[in-house]
């Protein structure tokens, strides 16, 4: 602008005359701006009057296009790919699933009771990692002050197309020792399913029978890092996808370890993957503290095996008791 906005550098000993002059200039400038704005609006008015404002429409469409895909995700994710925007979006679905679909009863999860971070070890059940998602969700809801726990996902699922980006966004991490240790070291709890694929791919008649707990990885990590290990029994998730039998040969064509046949799955197409609304119970056992053994005990294979067997049988006891005392699968 050609007109100076100030009459000069301000001096401390200025007299009222100069102040008056400056006010005049300011007023003239304001007047000038108003005129310019009015004239600009005048020029745009006829266009806006003639029905549609194409320019505006085009501009807004362009803006919408350039930000497409950015509204659903944040520009930063954490180092394991978890995205807070995605979590916030999915939380409503998770709440609905937890409270209305599966009506989950949680026992033993108090504001202070399992110290966080800890390693949660649960029985694997159901085809899809709904149990992991729900466990992480329930722990996050009960302890909003702590970082959101992550659930470990078996290899076969985390490498499937479409599953991988979705799971990573909501806090799923590929199950391996390096990942679990890194998460726990940085203060984030981990929900793990040591049975792995053997556990989630059980057929229906074998439900609630725990399989072998891998090679003792969970216990080894808890020993090495000195984090508490919390046994968890999840009851009800076995009935979300009751697998009648498994087909192997066809599955290899599409790169899956097996193709499950449930009362709904291949028959109803993708709709058959909707989990059944069984009633769930989550029982958190007392945290096991392996601290007295010391971190070097992680290399003691016999001790690791013994602790793993004990852990497995304690979870099996919790499951058996809960299954015995429940009245019905769906009520």
């Amino acid at each position, binding site marked *: 602008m050609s007109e100076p906005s100030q009459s000069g550098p301000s001096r401390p000993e200025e007299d009222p005359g100069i102040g008056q002059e400056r006010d005049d200039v300011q007023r003239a400038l304001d007047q000038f701006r108003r005129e310019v704005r009015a004239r600009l609006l005048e020029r745009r008015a006829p266009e806006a009057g003639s029905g549609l404002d194409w320019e505006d429409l085009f501009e807004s469409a362009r803006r919408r296009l*350039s930000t*497409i*895909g*950015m509204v659903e*995700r944040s*520009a*930063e*994710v954490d*180092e*394991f*790919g978890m*995205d807070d925007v995605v979590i916030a979006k999915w939380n409503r679905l998770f709440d609905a699933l937890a409270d209305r679909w599966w009506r989950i009863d949680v026992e033993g999860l108090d504001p202070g009771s399992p110290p966080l971070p800890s390693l949660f070890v649960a029985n694997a059940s159901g085809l899809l990692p709904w149990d992991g998602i729900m466990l992480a969700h329930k722990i996050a809801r009960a302890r909003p002050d702590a970082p959101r726990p992550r659930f470990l996902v078996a*290899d076969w699922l*985390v*490498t*499937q*197309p*479409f599953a*991988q*980006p979705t799971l*990573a*966004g909501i806090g799923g*991490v*590929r199950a*391996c*020792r*390096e*990942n679990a240790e*890194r998460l726990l070291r940085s203060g984030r709890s981990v929900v793990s399913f040591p049975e792995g694929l053997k556990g989630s791919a059980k057929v229906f008649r074998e439900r609630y029978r725990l399989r072998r707990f891998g090679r003792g990885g969970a216990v080894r990590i808890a020993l090495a890092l000195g984090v508490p290990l919390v046994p968890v029994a999840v009851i009800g998730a076995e009935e979300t996808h009751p697998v009648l039998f498994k087909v192997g040969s066809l599955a290899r064509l599409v790169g899956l370890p097996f193709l499950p046949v449930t009362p709904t799955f291949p028959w109803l197409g993708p709709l058959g993957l909707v989990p059944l609304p069984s009633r769930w119970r989550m029982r958190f056992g007392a945290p096991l503290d392996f601290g007295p053994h010391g971190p070097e005990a992680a290399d003691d294979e016999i001790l690791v095996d013994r602790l793993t067997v004990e852990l497995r049988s304690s979870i099996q006891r919790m499951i058996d008791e809960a299954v015995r005392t429940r009245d019905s699968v769906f009520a």
Partner: protein
Amino acid sequence: MVSEGGVSAPTSIAITGLGSFFGRRLAQRLLELPRPPKIVGIDLRRPWRLEGRIGFHRVDLGDPAAGGKLAEVLVRERVERVVHAAFRRDPTPDVEADHELETVGSIHVMNACAAAKVDHLVWLSSTMLYGARPDNPNFLGEEHPLRGHADAHCVRNRVEAEELLARFRVKHRDLHVSALRFAWVMGPEFEDRVVRHFASPVVTTLLGYDPLVQFVHEEDALDVLERCVLEDHPGTYNVVGPGVLPLSTLLALGGKRALPLPTPLLYRLEHWLSQSRYGDLPAGFYDYLRWLFVADGARGWDRFGEPVYSSREAWISFVSSRRMRRYR
């Protein structure tokens, strides 16, 4: 000038692959020092705009007698440190020549260093050597085995060379070796196959896959390289920018369109094109857009300090510089 480890700065530095991005830019940086060391460039072609300021020797590392020739040069020029940057920027369809240069050429460099009693060898490497595998942990430490990629011959060659380097290190313990594993380099100037792939406004991706991607900015990479050349930092370091971003977020940030193609289709579509251009099957490149190969940079950050650019900032620097170039 005395560096961190109490070792005085080298007075004579040889750079193999002077014409490569890292070779050229490192030479320029060293010449800008207050007391520049003597620089001995080794390459096939005389470097542009560096004549007279550096010594140049034409040695073909693909030549079977290159080891002796190189050793002779190193002894004559009294070289104290060698920077090995003579690696292919892009794989070429001539698979055998690439092998001669990258694997056998590296053996010549190692042998020449040992014969000429060089103090220090700085070795340029890449996190791509870990290989993009579905069973990778989210963060790969420097000790993670280098599994490479079966379909990427340049990665394979360099993995082989680095295995030989590991043996060389055990044999010549007094010769310090710094190996720098760079993540994908991004920045205004650097260019290779990865950069070209990301430079186009429509970027081919794999349908249903959205791996976390990691970059390092070219200036950060050069900073670490320069410090390794001037100071004493033996060991292997991942040189990566902090932070990771999903591929889809990167493209959205850069205002690029993703063209997601089903994996089997893309691998068939690109089959001949990719083989004639790079000598590899498409999987040799696209698997790196499919699976994770994020390296853990903590050791390097402890040693050299946190990089100026995070992965995200490196990407933005690259995208915005390309955009400027279009309007120039």
